[in-house]
């Protein structure tokens, strides 16, 4: 909770805009992948990929709603000024905050795990059930220890970025290179969120770096779309 309260005073709602950009990029990619799945239903990977992106986008949506609650509450307290009433409003916000942030964490971690599983063929059904359970437990108990959540995201993103780097080394496509760079930037943003423990300003840097990462992902996707217009000689 501390991390977001600090952000409220530092970014004054800009982080909501940053998260909206991320949600839009993730949703557009998710919708396009779902269309690819409809075009070629034999490739189930498209379906799982779109589910992963929708889950992460859903997580961002909860984060946006949670942030709105914080800003709204802050305004209410200033306007009323009566101790009893302002206390009540804050208490209500705490519950909304906890629920919203819990769903943000669960959906974000689940989405990243689905994405990670796509490149890791060794996982079976029992492992997946266990991981989902651990994700829910981790999301529930990290309310007061934000850095543990960001550490889990950092690990998952790190593994996924490594897979994308291996893929780039294999295919040498420039769109694959953009993808590696975008995911590496998003991974770094979570490292900055963890460094909040050293200095609160790292949250602000993390938000800006994360925005750059999602914009990079948007550029990657636009490049893929442009490729559709190029003719392939055979």
């Amino acid at each position, binding site marked *: 909770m501390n991390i977001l309260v600090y952000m409220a005073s530092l970014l004054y709602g800009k982080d909501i805009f940053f998260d909206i950009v991320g949600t839009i990029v993730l949703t557009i990619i998710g919708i*396009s992948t779902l269309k*690819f799945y409809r075009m*070629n239903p034999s490739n189930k990977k498209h379906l799982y*990929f779109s589910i992963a992106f929708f889950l992460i986008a859903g997580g961002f949506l909860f984060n946006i709603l949670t942030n709105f609650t914080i800003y709204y509450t802050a305004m209410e307290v200033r306007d009323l000024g009566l101790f009893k009433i302002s206390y009540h409003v804050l208490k209500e916000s705490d519950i909304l905050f906890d629920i919203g942030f819990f769903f943000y964490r669960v959906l974000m971690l689940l989405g990243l795990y689905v994405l990670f599983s796509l490149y890791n063929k060794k996982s079976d059904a029992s492992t997946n059930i266990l991981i989902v359970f651990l994700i829910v437990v981790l999301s529930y108990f990290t309310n007061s220890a934000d850095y543990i959540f960001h550490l889990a995201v950092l690990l998952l993103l790190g593994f996924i970025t490594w897979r994308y780097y291996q893929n780039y080394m294999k295919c040498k496509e420039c769109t694959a290179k953009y993808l590696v760079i975008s995911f590496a930037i998003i991974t770094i943003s979570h490292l900055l969120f963890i460094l909040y423990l050293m200095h609160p300003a790292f949250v602000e840097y993390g938000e800006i770096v994360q925005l750059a990462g999602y914009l990079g992902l948007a550029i990657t996707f636009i490049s893929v779309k442009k490729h*559709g217009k190029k003719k*392939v000689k055979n």
Partner: protein
Amino acid sequence: MVKKRSRTDIIGDMLEVIQNKRGEIKQTHLMYKSNLSYGQLTSYLEELVDKHFVQKIERESNFYILITDRGNEFLEKFREMKQFEKTFGL
């Protein structure tokens, strides 16, 4: 090991071959260029005509296959999908 082509892959390859021949190709040439048997070609062509991706016309006792606007649109989406798969390693 070479990966087996899916139905969508074969349709995409056929449309790619037709487009590269300026949107018009002899049926027999399409068969060779798409690596299909006569039976397979007939089945796929039926599907492509049904979906209005191609037109089949007879000229000077030869069958010609013409790609339609709808076929070109599908091919564009197909290329996008292939590039997406390459980029994300799917």
